[in-house]
């Protein structure tokens, strides 16, 4: 005797086409659910990545290394005197995309008899391009060039406040590391719009060597910014770097530690997204359960006949589950394909969230950008796959158990 192989799939497939209208409606709902779920997951992930990227690329990088305590008070005394070994460690770490050595300090800026507080950000322009968007923020003039000395690019509001135009001179005063006051004059070569209001009126960018001289730093820097290849790799890069530097002397921070408020915002946004998805899932689940219950109820007599033929209660339940799962797989095939297309479109062209009130909430973060881009990832594909399967299974569980619990006599008597 061969093994008993009940053709569940064949039966399920044919059963589905008995009530075409209902099956197509259910399938449509499941397809819509699969599509929206996966697309939204990919889109939300991409949008958050974009937000984070914007933020990180302007301010924090993925990982920052400082002398211990620097992030608390930005004291010029807390510097990395010998960046060499740390740079060597960074270069030997996997998943690092780029890094940049920086000097950051507060300064007093003066021109035409006016003065203003300023924030100096100094770097090697060739390296900085890999980690930040500074070079993209230019409104007027040109970017810093590594081979020139004595040049600055100003936040455009700061320039307005001090009445400065391209080619003008600006005087800067800082506290130097040797306890003296450092002061020098610089030529304005460009005006930048960082898009974050606090920076528009204070940012001064200059070459690393100029700042090192101004602060009497020698070869020291006070920040090293590292970008990982992908946002998913940040934790890994952070961990690897933390192991390699002396924890007594240096602190290694992720962007989330350097800017916890951004991380919190993204988490909050995920939470509200998940809540909406949970409601969406519950609605889909109840709708599908309803149609499965109806389809089972119509076939009570038939199930009775099957029991008389010797199908076990569990096998009947399996038939009911198979029918729904079959629909789930067809729905996923179509819905996920649609999601791939719409996600691809929204990775290529972006999706403007402005009509959904993104403008206001992004402005709170000093970001004007409302155009977001989706991001493909296996992770969220798996999440969507598991959600659709899980939802369909839960929707069919109750009717399936009810079917298994039917008593044969009553089922057969049922007309």
């Amino acid at each position: 005797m061969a093994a008993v192989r009940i053709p569940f799939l064949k039966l399920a497939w044919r059963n589905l086409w008995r009530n075409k209208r209902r099956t197509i409606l259910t399938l449509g709902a499941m397809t819509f659910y699969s599509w929206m779920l996966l697309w939204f997951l990919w889109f939300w992930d991409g949008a958050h990545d974009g937000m984070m990227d914007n933020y990180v690329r302007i301010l924090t990088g993925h990982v920052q290394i400082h002398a211990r305590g620097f992030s608390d008070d930005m004291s010029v005394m807390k510097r990395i005197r010998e960046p060499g070994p740390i740079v060597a460690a960074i270069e030997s770490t996997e998943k690092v995309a780029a890094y940049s050595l920086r000097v950051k300090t507060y300064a007093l800026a003066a021109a035409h008899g006016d003065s203003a507080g300023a924030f100096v950000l100094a770097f090697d322009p060739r390296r900085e391009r890999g980690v930040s968007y500074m070079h993209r923020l230019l409104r007027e003039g040109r970017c810093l060039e590594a081979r020139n000395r004595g040049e600055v690019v100003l936040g455009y509001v700061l320039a307005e406040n001090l009445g400065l135009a391209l080619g003008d001179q600006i005087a800067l005063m800082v506290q130097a590391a040797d306890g003296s006051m450092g002061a020098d004059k610089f030529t304005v070569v460009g005006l930048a719009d960082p898009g974050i209001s606090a920076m528009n009126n204070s940012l001064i960018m200059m070459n690393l060597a100029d700042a090192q001289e101004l602060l009497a730093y020698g070869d020291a820097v006070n920040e090293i910014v590292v970008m990982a290849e992908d946002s998913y790799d940040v934790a890994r890069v952070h961990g690897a770097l933390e192991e390699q530097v002396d924890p007594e002397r240096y602190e290694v921070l992720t962007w989330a530690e350097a800017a916890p408020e951004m991380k919190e915002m993204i988490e909050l946004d995920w939470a509200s997204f998940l809540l909406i998805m949970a409601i969406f899932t519950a609605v889909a689940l109840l709708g599908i359960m309803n149609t499965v219950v109806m389809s089972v109820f119509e076939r009570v007599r038939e199930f009775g006949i099957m029991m008389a033929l010797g199908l076990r209660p569990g096998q009947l339940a399996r038939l009911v589950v198979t029918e729904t799962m079959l629909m789930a797989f067809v729905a996923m095939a179509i819905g996920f394909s649609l999601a791939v297309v719409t996600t691809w479109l929204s990775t290529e062209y972006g999706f403007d969230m402005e009509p959904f009130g993104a403008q206001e909430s992004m402005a709170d973060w000093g970001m004007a950008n409302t155009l977001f881009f989706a991001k493909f990832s296996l992770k969220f594909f798996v999440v969507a796959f598991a959600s659709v399967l899980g939802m369909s299974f839960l929707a069919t569980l109750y009717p399936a158990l009810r079917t298994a619990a039917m008593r044969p006599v009553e089922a057969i008597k049922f007309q």
Partner: protein
Amino acid sequence: MDKVVEIQNLHKVYRDGFDVHALRGVDLDIARGDFMTIAGPSGSGKTTLLNILGGLDRPTEGRVFIEGQEVTAMSRSELADLRRRRLGFVFQSFNLIPVLTARENVEFALILRGVEPNRRRELPQKVLGQVGLDECMRERRPFDLSGGQQQRVAVARAIVGEPAVVLADEPTANLDTENALALLDLMERLNEERQATFIFSTHDPRVMERAKRHVMLRDGEVVSDERRA
């Protein structure tokens, strides 16, 4: 006598609202190869008895054995296995699985018995031939068959796996005389050729006449048990 079915002191009380004593102590032995009818007025307990024999329902008291196995002591799954391996059913109407063709309905019984694929393909054709279903009808679904044709397919499905007993509850009730007699001829022939044991209930005097053994029920009790030569 080679007993296929043994029924001992069977009682069935339906309890919904008030008690209905549908079977009141039925004792019967049924021999292999028998062709037995159970008759009696409406409400006398025929359906109740057949359902309990087939393990579709449980008695309130008493025991049933099929080929020595105690049906009344089996679990739901064991009952399903017993029905699958040793029993065939024919009900009054709508016996077939609507999404399967006539041939597939018969084949389904073989699949459930774990018959190997080769035999599974030949046997249904052979048996459908025996029950007189034209070849051109065999790939039709039940909806496209007449009531008589459906019943013949149901009989084919019931006997194809060579069960110990075929239980039929008023199999001819929904058929006209011609079709009813044809179905009876068929069952009689199968009974002779295959030594299949048939037990069926009926109101129909034409059916009673044909039985080798004839049991009468009234108010849940056996009132007569006759054997014809």
